[in-house]
């Protein structure tokens, strides 16, 4: 489903990614590891279609409608409430019965009680939970998760563990993390960047 061949990404003179190739079948789970600055975020932005490679080819089957993305930024409006954010993105992502789906995700991620609070009042961990809700809102067939455990407390991380366990094998997942042991049992493919 996703094929990268000799991918390179440059920002001006700076080379953020070089010579990366991989092949991930549909419903596969690609674990991307590597130290800071190795190009994990750059690679995941390429896979998400938020950036284009300077060289090499990247093929991602499927439509944009089927992609859920969690990045370093929450991709949320800080002055909208949790529910307003999910309602807006639910509309734009064509989610049928988006209010029910939003409510279900907010409950699952422990945010139902703060659904009417603005994101600007959330802690980083709560914001990350809401970013995960946004990414899962349209039940995507491809999930691109850039260090999704960042800022999550033990409960939040356990929730995400459960989500990933239920989605692995059902969805195509590309995930980068500094804690590979946490998700290694779920991964079908591994890509170590240097």
């Amino acid at each position: 489903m996703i094929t990268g061949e000799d991918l390179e990404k440059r920002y001006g003179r700076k080379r953020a990614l070089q010579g990366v190739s991989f092949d991930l079948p549909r419903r596969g789970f690609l674990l991307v590891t590597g130290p800071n600055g190795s190009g994990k975020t750059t690679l995941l932005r390429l896979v998400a279609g938020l950036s284009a490679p300077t060289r090499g080819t990247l093929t991602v089957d499927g439509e944009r409608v089927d992609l859920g993305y969690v990045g370093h930024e929450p991709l949320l409006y800080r002055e909208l409430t949790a529910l307003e954010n999910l309602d807006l993105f639910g509309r734009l992502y064509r989610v049928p019965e988006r209010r029910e789906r939003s409510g279900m995700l907010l409950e699952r991620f422990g945010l139902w009680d703060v659904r009417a609070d603005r994101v600007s009042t959330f802690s980083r961990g709560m914001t990350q939970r809401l970013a995960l809700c946004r990414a899962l809102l349209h039940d995507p067939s491809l999930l691109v998760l850039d260090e999704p455990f960042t800022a999550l407390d033990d409960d939040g991380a356990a929730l995400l563990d459960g989500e990933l366990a239920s989605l692995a094998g059902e969805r195509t997942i590309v995930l980068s993390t500094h804690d590979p042991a946490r998700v290694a049992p779920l991964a079908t493919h591994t890509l170590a960047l240097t």
Partner: protein
Amino acid sequence: MNALALYTADVVALARKDLKLELRARDTLPAMLLFVLSTLAVFHFALPAGTGDDAAFGLLWIAIVFTALLGLARAWAPEREGGALDGLVLAPCDRSAIWLGKTLATLAFLAAAELVALPAFALLFAPVDLVAVAGVALASIGICAVGSLLAAMAAASRGREVILPLLFLPLAIPLVVGGVGAGISPEGATYLSFLGLYDLVFAILAWATFEYVVTE
């Protein structure tokens, strides 16, 4: 729902979101109102006695263009702060809806500033007739259509405060010419036609190119 209805619903949702954000944060509109009123007040005292209406209309357009620039500089701030633009770009909606929603919201803020500025101008400088008001309305559409696109381009760069005026002001010159012409010329209708043509051409260009502006 057919494609046009879906597109319209997306645009309305995006524009309404911007109005809601402004109602809560009050980041943009108060600054625009204060700026346009204080600029007109300063011009009132700076303009020598006996200066004709022609010069006064020129000053009105300086106030309007820089008030618009103030609004445009803030236009994409909510998307920049939380990375929300990436969320919009990833959505399966037509990306031009993002531009159109932003253009409509910016136009609403500029129209609100002009609703205050025009009576103030009439009070301090010269009467404003219907042709001049139509000129302001048409030029404002062009300002917001072009400005929203350029502000999105500038928002992605580090020197956005410098880049936006550098990109926007040259493209605003025809609008100033048309707006001033509609206000002072006996052939106001010709200038209105010119402004309408500018709006049409640049709105289509902005609508068609926005997708390339928001993707790397």
